[in-house]
Each structure stands twice: as structure tokens, then as C-alpha cells.
């Protein structure tokens, strides 16, 4: 029992070693860029961290930034567990926002104890529908989900713009001038700000969304590691043909994993809409949460608990960049750090080169001993 526990800890340490290394390297490279701007990297990183975890209300803002990242990270991670690369989280997120805001309008007379729940479910359904397309195409026709989801991201963006401009626009539903955003979520449909329970969060607009996100991470952990569904999904991701031979349907699990992944992405959209923005804006580009979700999942090793930790890290980076910019350092340094983290993780084979080198060295030393 004792040794089993120890080996589990060893596995955990082994699996976070590489992401940690990637983060450290990325910060070092980021430091060079900061020096280039003529600033002191230690001061800059000091600003970054004080801006995001310096006091409780700043930490609240960090949690707010981390909230959608937890959902999108979970979405990408869940897909990955089934061997799917869901690069379409971006589009599924957009569908989640549109479904949530439409629900807010349609059910505007619903009481407050039930409306937020309905809107969250609607958001999840929106994301799930959009993810079902690449899922079923991969399962039934063997089409690569990556390209399909990229195409669907932009399709979702333009459809959402169309809906916001000519269906859900306040000018159409309420009359008045044309706006670049949709109607608002009614007051009783919004998530509660945590400041109302814990006043020390101060001005921060962090809301119960973060609680929902953490609960969702635990649920996903439970599904993945404690249920038959999770076992089948992971089994298909690990070795689809062996799974099929063992009676696990590849097609069913691929579709299901994609739909669950999309539902999580849609939840990210719904939580953002009913927790923070209360409306959907017309956009010229991607919201970016989906691509950040890929980074979050990679750093978190596709494990729900790891994703919670890495979402917090990316929340810190996202929130701290503002204070860094006030101190005179271009906020793009943070983007550079983020992308270098992903580049290092994409190059994970570097890690597999290392043991080879180690082996060579240890072999040599052994031979020397024998001689």
C-alpha cells in the first residue's frame, strides 16, 4: 500500500516535471525580451505577479480570467483523452454564448433560482451541437477533426455576428438604434459576484462561475477515471483498434467525447456571458479562449486537476499583463511567454532524447568501472 502510494506520487512528479521545465524556460526567454525593452525582468515579473496575486481583489480578477480557461482547458483535455484534437473549442464557445444570450431573451420572465441553470444548460447544448459535426464526421466518415473544426470556428464567428446584428440586436427586439451587441441577460439570470459573499474581493467581478468551473473539473475527473464511460473514452484514445476488438465502439466514443468536449466549451461561453459580459458583442476575430484552452490542457497534461492548476497560471499571466504594461513593458511579452510554453511542450520529444543521453553517459561510466 505504502509503495503503491509512493509510486503514484512518483508518476505525478514525473508528469509535471516537463510542463514545469517548459514554464521556467519560457520565463527565462521572456526575460530576454524584457531586457530588450530596457527594463529589469525581475521588476517586470514582480509587477506581473503583484498585479495578479498581490491582494485579494486582484486575485479575484485572476480567478475571473481563469474561469473560462478551466472550461476550455477541460474541453481540449477531454477530447485529447479520446485521441481527438478539438481545435474547434473557439467556435463551440461562440455557440455557447449565442445559445445563452438567446435563452436569456426567450426565458426573460423565468424566476432567478432557475434561470441561470437553464442558461448554462443551453450554452452547453450550443457547444455540443457545434462539436457534434466534427465528431460524427470523424466517427462515420473518418474525416480529420482538426481541419473541420478550424473551418467551423470561422463559420461560427460569422453566424454569431449575423445573429447579433439581425436577430438578437436590441434595435430589433426592443427598438431604437442599431447596436454592435446583443440584448442583455436579464438581472435574475446572472451569476452572483463573489464580493457579495466575501467583501474582501472588493471591485473584482469574479463570480460563482469559478465555483462551477472547479466543480466541473471534479466531475470530469470522476467521469474520466471512475466510470465506464471514461474508461471507454480513454481506451479509444489509447488504442482504438484494441478497444474495438475488446467490444468498445470507436464511433460511439469519438462522437460522445467530442460532444462532451463541445458542451464544456459551450459552458465556458455561457459562464462568460451570464457572469461577466451579460451580452454578446459582434467580433472581427476569435475570442481566443479556445486556443488558450489548448495551452492550458497541454500544460495540465490533460488531467482535470492539472488543468485547474495551469488555468490558474494562465489566469495570472492574463491578469498580470495589465499592471506590467502600466509599468512600461509591452504586454505582448506575456503572449510570447505563453507561446514559448506551448512550443516547448510541442517539442516534448526533447524530453525523450534526454534519457537516451543519460543512458549513454551511464553506460560509459559503467564501462569505465569495468575496465
Amino acid at each position, binding site marked *: 500500500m505504502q509503495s503503491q502510494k509512493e509510486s503514484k506520487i512518483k508518476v505525478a512528479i514525473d508528469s509535471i516535471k516537463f510542463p514545469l521545465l517548459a514554464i521556467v524556460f519560457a520565463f527565462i526567454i521572456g526575460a530576454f*525580451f524584457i531586457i*530588450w*525593452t530596457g527594463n529589469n525582468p525581475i521588476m517586470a515579473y514582480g509587477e506581473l505577479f503583484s498585479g495578479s496575486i498581490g491582494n485579494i481583489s486582484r486575485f479575484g480578477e485572476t480567478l475571473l480570467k481563469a474561469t473560462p480557461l478551466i472550461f476550455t482547458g477541460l474541453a481540449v483535455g477531454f477530447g485529447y483523452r479520446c485521441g481527438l*484534437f478539438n*481545435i474547434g473549442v473557439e467556435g463551440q464557445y461562440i455557440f455557447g454564448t449565442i445559445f445563452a444570450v438567446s435563452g436569456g431573451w426567450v426565458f426573460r420572465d423565468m424566476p432567478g433560482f432557475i434561470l441561470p441553470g437553464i442558461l448554462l444548460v443551453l450554452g452547453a447544448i450550443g457547444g455540443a451541437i457545434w462539436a457534434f*459535426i466534427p465528431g460524427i*464526421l470523424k466517427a462515420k*466518415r473518418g*474525416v*480529420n477533426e*482538426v*481541419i*473541420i473544426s*478550424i*473551418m*467551423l470556428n*470561422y*463559420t461560427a464567428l*460569422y*453566424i454569431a*455576428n*449575423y445573429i447579433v*446584428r*439581425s436577430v438578437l440586436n436590441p434595435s430589433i427586439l426592443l427598438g431604437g438604434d442599431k447596436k454592435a451587441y446583443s440584448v442583455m441577460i436579464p438581472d435574475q439570470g446572472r451569476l452572483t459576484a463573489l464580493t457579495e459573499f466575501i467583501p474582501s474581493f472588493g471591485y473584482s467581478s469574479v463570480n460563482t462561475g469559478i465555483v462551477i468551473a472547479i466543480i466541473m473539473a471534479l466531475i470530469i475527473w470522476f467521469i474520466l477515471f471512475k466510470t465506464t464511460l471514461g474508461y471507454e473514452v480513454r481506451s479509444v484514445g489509447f488504442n482504438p483498434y484494441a478497444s474495438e476488438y475488446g467490444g468498445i465502439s470507436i464511433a460511439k466514443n469519438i462522437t460522445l467525447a467530442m460532444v462532451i468536449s463541445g458542451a464544456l466549451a459551450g459552458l465556458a461561453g455561457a459562464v462568460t456571458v451570464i457572469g461577466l459580459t451579460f451580452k454578446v458583442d459582434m467580433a*472581427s*476575430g*476569435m475570442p481566443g479562449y479556445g*486556443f488558450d484552452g*489548448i*495551452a492550458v490542457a*497541454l500544460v495540465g497534461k490533460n488531467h482535470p486537476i492539472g488543468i485547474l492548476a495551469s488555468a490558474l497560471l494562465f489566469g495570472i499571466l492574463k491578469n498580470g499583463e495589465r499592471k506590467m504594461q502600466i509599468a512600461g513593458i*509591452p504586454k*505582448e*511579452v*506575456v*503572449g*510570447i511567454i*505563453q*507561446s*514559448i510554453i*506551448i*512550443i516547448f*511542450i*510541442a*517539442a*516534448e*520529444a*526533447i524530453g525523450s532524447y534526454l534519457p537516451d543521453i543519460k543512458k549513454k553517459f551511464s553506460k560509459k561510466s559503467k564501462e569505465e568501472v569495468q575496465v
Partner: protein
Amino acid sequence: MVIFIALLASALRLATPLIFSALGGIFSERSGVVNIALEGIMINGAFFAILVTHFTGSPWLGVFAAMFIGALTALLLAVLAIHLRGDQVVAGVAINLFATSITAFLLEMVWHRSGQTDSVPVSLTGNPFTFLEKIPVLGNLFSGLTPFVYLSFVAVAVTYFVIYKTPFGLRIRAVGEHPRAADTVGINVYTVRYICVMISGVLGGLSGASLSLGTVSLFREGMTSGKGFIAIAAMIFGKWHPVGALLASLFFGFAEAVQIQAASLGISNIPSELLQTLPYVATVLVLAGFIGRAVAPKAGGVPYQKGHR
């Protein structure tokens, strides 16, 4: 007629960056490396074209810089995807993010603001063959073309020739379809893939230059706005064939031109957003096999490891 000519010229101009990037995608994917990084390569190309033109005053030097930086960016993808056997899609996503950040960073370092650069005094937005403008009717078409439009057609011809008429092209296709067999007959899979990904970078950089130097003569953050992905769509729609990619790019360019000029054409009843989704929806339908069937090179996305079975 005048409106139609203007529309055609605009379609050709809008298709140009797509043609270059789609050709780049063909080189990379035909050799078995999925190139999601085209968007990032375009961003880098567009920025460095303006940067170098800004400092040297020569737009053609800017174009060469864009090609060079494109190749350099692609080299990063090549190292990650070929040598380190990383996930090609993840590497591509990382490079896209990196390009967005690094160009925004350099923009702020050089021009001390964010958003967009100053416009460069000399650019390549004019028609290089002014004598063509004397042709009646068609002259109006030629006056709207940039050097990049002509270059893109040349690039299509060269790509077709290289891929289908040269021994090297045969090697590219062999490596992309069955790297192990290619390796067995003595083709160096790694070398071919490195060269192809770098060529893809050169074309992607050129595409970026055609976007910045060839249209507005400045660099704006987010100016590619997914054009790299539309190029990938064009490549798929054209079934990984240079001429197919050219036709697909022209089609998508025409759709965009119609969408931009919808008001002057008097077709404002089609929502412009739905026209914008056209390239993407068309690609999904083609990939899913509802209109024809697009089959990717077999070894696409799979890192090759010598000596492994």
C-alpha cells in the same frame, strides 16, 4: 461592365495571398507535414515586409525579407514536427500565437504604439505593366492588378512543374504518401520534408507581403484575420493540386469581393456574414465527401521515425 471589371480586379487581388499560402500548404502537406502555422507565417511575412521596407525604402527588399522570415518561421515548425516528432497541429498553434505576439511586440518597439504601423512611402500596390492599361476595356482590369497578382500565377505554374514534372516532385509525393517505402529506395525523408516546409514558409511569407505591401502598404495587427486558414481551405478544396488551389482561391477571392462590394452591386439582401462563411462551409462539405471527395496525402501529420515499424 465597369463594375464587373472592378469586381474581377478586386477578386484577383483578394485571391493573391490565398494562392501563395495555398501553394505553400501544398508543398508542406504533399511531403506529409500538416501546416496549420501558415497563418502565423503570413503574419510574420506581412510585418517584416513592412519593417524592412520602412528601414531600407525598398519594397522589393521587403518582399525578400518576408520570404526569408517565412522560411525561418517554417524552420521552427520543421524542427518541431520533423526532428523532435512533436504534434504538428500543436506546433502550428504555438507558432501562430508566437507570430501574433512577436509582431505586436516589435511593432511597439519600433513604432512605439500598438495597432498598426505607419504606411511605407513606396509600396507595390500599382500595376507593374502600365502598357497593358492601354488595351480597351481590359485595361481597367490590368490597372487594378499588383505585381503580386502576376507573381502568384507564375508561382502556380512553377509549383505544378516542380511537383508533377521533376524527380524532386516525385520524391515529395512519395514521402507524403509512404515515407517508409521512399526511405527504402534511398530518398532522405527528413531532407525532403525540411525543404518542403521551408518552401512552404517562403510562399507563406510572400503571401504575407502581398497582403501588407500589396494592398494597404502598412501592417495592422490581426490583418490576416484567418486568411491563412482560408488558404488551407483553398488547398483542400483544390484537392492538394496547384491548379485546383488556384481555382479555389479565385473562387474564395471572388466571394469576398462580392461581399465587400455587395452594396454597389445591389445585392444587399444576402447577409454579408453568410457570404463570409462560404469558404469554410464549402471546405467542410468537400472534406465530408458531400461534393466530390478530398483525400489528404496519406502520411500527413504523422512524424517519420527511421528504423521504427
